[in-house]
């Protein structure tokens, strides 16, 4: 088969990894997985944990489905996919509860909701069912990274502008009750933007990212 001759890191395979980072980004181009991008991007830490959780689930489910792809009857494939994804999500949830209880509490229901993340189902349906495990692995890493990049960008701006912190550190100074008690930018009358903490601003941030990306990337400009 032609597929066998292809090197592990052939051009085609590499593009599986790199395309979702920019040209075919799951959030900004395919517009999938928006709900979680809005819900858990108020701070950087939960956003990164979420991105890692999605990466774990996506990689394993993509590879497993790809290995099983010739065994699954197509009529019940959605149920099989859901079963595998659900099992993986439970594993992630239990690990988080055991080793990162605080973050797990912050993410609350959204860990469980990874199961309904459109990116995962989308990749399983569109890719894993038709490609070998190595390609499925690369595709999963690429898409999960594309998701992670956008999540981190949104969370960076929301945490910095919304609460003046990064990873919980007060990078813009400390806000006291009065100007004299405050340090850093707050001393000069700066204030946090409460709107950044609300969900609409996450959507607007995604919109701005899409805007910037489309105006820079000529491939994405529509007629």
């Amino acid at each position: 088969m032609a597929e066998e001759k292809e090197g592990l890191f052939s051009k085609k395979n590499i593009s599986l990894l790199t395309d979702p980072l920019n040209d075919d980004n799951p959030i900004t181009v395919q517009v999938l997985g928006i709900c979680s991008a809005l819900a858990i991007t108020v701070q950087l830490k939960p956003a990164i944990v979420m991105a890692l959780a999605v990466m774990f689930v996506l990689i394993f489910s993509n590879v497993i489905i790809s290995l099983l792809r010739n065994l699954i009857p197509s009529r019940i494939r959605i149920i099989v996919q859901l079963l595998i994804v659900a099992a993986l999500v439970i594993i992630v949830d239990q690990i988080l509860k055991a080793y990162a209880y605080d973050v797990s509490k912050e993410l609350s229901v959204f860990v469980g909701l990874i199961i309904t993340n459109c990116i995962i189902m989308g990749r399983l349906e569109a890719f894993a069912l038709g490609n070998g495990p190595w390609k499925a692995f690369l595709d999963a890493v690429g898409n999960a990274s594309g998701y992670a990049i956008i999540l981190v960008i949104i969370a960076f701006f929301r945490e910095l502008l919304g609460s003046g912190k990064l990873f919980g550190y007060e990078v813009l100074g400390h806000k006291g009750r009065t100007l004299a008690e405050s340090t850093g930018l707050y001393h000069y009358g700066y204030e946090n933007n409460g709107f950044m903490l609300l969900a609409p601003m996450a959507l607007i941030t995604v919109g701005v990212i899409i805007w910037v990306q489309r105006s820079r990337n000529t491939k994405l400009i529509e007629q």
Partner: protein
Amino acid sequence: MNFLRKKLDKVKPLFEKGGKYEKFGPAYFGIDTFLFVPNHTTKRGAHIRDGIDLKRVMMVVVIALLPALFFGMWNIGFQAMGEGHSFWEYFSFGALKVIPMIVVSYVVGLGIEFAYAIMRGHEVNEGYLVTGLLIPMIMPVELPLWMLAVAVAFAVIIGKEAFGGTGMNILNPALVARAFALFSYAPHMSGNTVWVANGGADAASGETILGVLGTNHMPTTSVYDMFMGYIPGSIGETSVLMILIGAAILLFTGIASWRVMLSIVLGASLTGLFFNAIGSDTNALFNFPWWKHLLVGGFAFGTVFMATDPVTAAQTTKGKWIYGFLIGFLAIMIRVINPTLPEGMMMAILLMNVFAPTIDHYVIESNIKKRKKRLQKVKA
């Protein structure tokens, strides 16, 4: 004037096609046509011979805004210093507070507009002339200038340029700025302390009438004060009288739609009557007389200057009635029933801005259906 014309003509070749600063051409022609009536005419095709263009329309709206603006300046002084000062003391106190806000609004807003015009190579749009004046007029007087600048930048970039600039925006940019400021910097945009300028010893208590009502007390302000505008509030919104003068200018020149204004008043009155009829012991707003709703808060200002914005309002005649009625209805609904938002006018207008194209669509569809039916009748 001649001097200015000569100066402009002298540098003109630099900005024309092939000139050294060709890129900045849009900015140059924007300034030129703002200062002088353009001397070129349309060359072909059918066109309307009318001297009024977008710039002149916008200037009329600005003129209509001036009475409310000047009264606002005076009122800020009056509210902050208490009684016993001269007219000029009040006025200069207020002017010193308001003029920096107007300057910031125009500098930031026009700066962004010019930057976009140059980047996209189109003419500078005049829409910001009005928006730039509206934004400071609907803000509390003590809003820090940098917050105003951020709100203006957000409104122009996200509210307007993202949709394609003047004439393409879905939401009223001035209200976008206010909504952004309200959600971003809530302590500076609502409450009892922000409506009266600091610095006066005998400052009024600073609570707005809707604020008092929110605490379940009937305000004692006289109707005369409400109508004349001797009450705390955003800079331009307090005086119903001055806003009515503006409304007269807009209606006389045919720039604003009387249908929208009238239907908003109708919608608000009926909703107010409805709540009056129900009554309530725990919420004073239920018992607040319906006609007083029309005098307080941003109702008059929103009705005359915000909802009638020709870009964001409904375009069809029937659509205008529906659009206006629902604004009035929602504004009073939000005021009375929602305890977290004392004023509902802004939200009502923004929400109906979003629905205006839908309303128009269905009005046109129903008209098409009606005509089809008529045609069938004639055929049969």
